């Protein structure tokens, strides 16, 4: 069914403010398809990142978190359940490649990170830009991973790892947030729920 829902497309000062009237309203099936696409993108980015990390002189344990671009976008555009599903798919991939422990660490970081994105996008959206939301999400992702690793290793790693992971979270969180800003126009062409990208 093609119907017009102009209220969905009210994004001030943007090229998306006046969409073509023929733009269809998306079905849950399309949403699921986009979620699948984003899950694939997440896995691909996570794989590329692994290769990048081998080449870049980064401190131990530090990763840019490129796949967070796709996860964050999914969380805002598709909603928390889809984002959590993507996190589980990614953790499954990590589990296959690096083992169960790495999978547990991945899922704990991922869940904390998407929860923060969902909360901030809902309640602090007018105050924070994507960059700010992404920074918080990256820092919490690191702390989720650190907590899981601390529990698994049996000793608190916070004092040792926290400064490095805080700084890397801020730096790479800002980078991924800006990256999301840069690719957003392209992603918005395939996303079903545009209204999540306007200030509520």
């Amino acid at each position, binding site marked *: 069914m093609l119907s017009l829902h102009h209220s969905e497309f009210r*994004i001030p*000062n*943007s*090229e*998306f403010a006046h969409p073509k009237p023929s733009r269809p309203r998306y079905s849950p099936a399309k949403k699921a398809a986009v979620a699948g696409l984003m899950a694939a993108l997440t896995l691909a980015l996570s794989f590329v990142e692994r290769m990048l990390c*081998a080449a870049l002189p980064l*401190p*131990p*344990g530090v990763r840019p978190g490129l796949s967070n671009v796709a996860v964050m976008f999914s969380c805002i555009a598709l909603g928390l359940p889809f984002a959590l599903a993507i996190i589980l798919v990614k953790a499954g991939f990590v589990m296959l*490649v*690096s*083992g*169960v*422990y*790495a999978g547990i*660490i991945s899922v704990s970081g991922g869940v904390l990170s998407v929860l923060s994105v969902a909360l901030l996008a809902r309640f*602090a959206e007018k*105050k*924070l*830009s*994507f*960059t*700010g939301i992404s*920074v*918080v999400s990256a*820092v919490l992702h690191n702390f989720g991973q650190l907590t899981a*690793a601390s529990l*698994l*290793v*049996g*000793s608190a*790693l916070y*004092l*040792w*790892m*926290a*400064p490095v992971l*805080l*700084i890397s*979270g*801020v730096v790479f969180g*800002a980078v991924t947030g*800006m990256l999301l*800003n840069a690719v*957003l*126009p392209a992603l918005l062409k395939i996303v079903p729920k545009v209204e999540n*990208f306007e200030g509520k």
Partner: protein
Amino acid sequence: MTERLKLKKADVLLICFLLAAALALLLLRGGGDALTAEVTVAGETVERIDLKAVTSPYDLTLENGVRLHVEPGGISFCYSDCRGQDCVRCGVLTRAGQAAACVPNKTLVVLTGKPPKGAPDAISS
């Protein structure tokens, strides 16, 4: 969408706060002239090695099968039976404050600036 690209005041404040917290943690951790590797397995310290006193490199095999490579001023994981091998990829730790962990084997290596237990903190004359 254009206003989204700009950093807002709250973003800048947030980033400053987080960086300040990192700095505070770094200061809290403190430094020191010594370089001691603390090896813990499942929360218990099994080895304390004064890396500045090491003159020739050697390998140290822990009870859980993890092998560490100790060299003058540095320590690294050189063998672990874990699948991820992230611990081995961490490379050589050479500065106080650095740490590497092998989660599946519950092994943690931390470098501190404090001298090993038993050694004097300072010698005054």
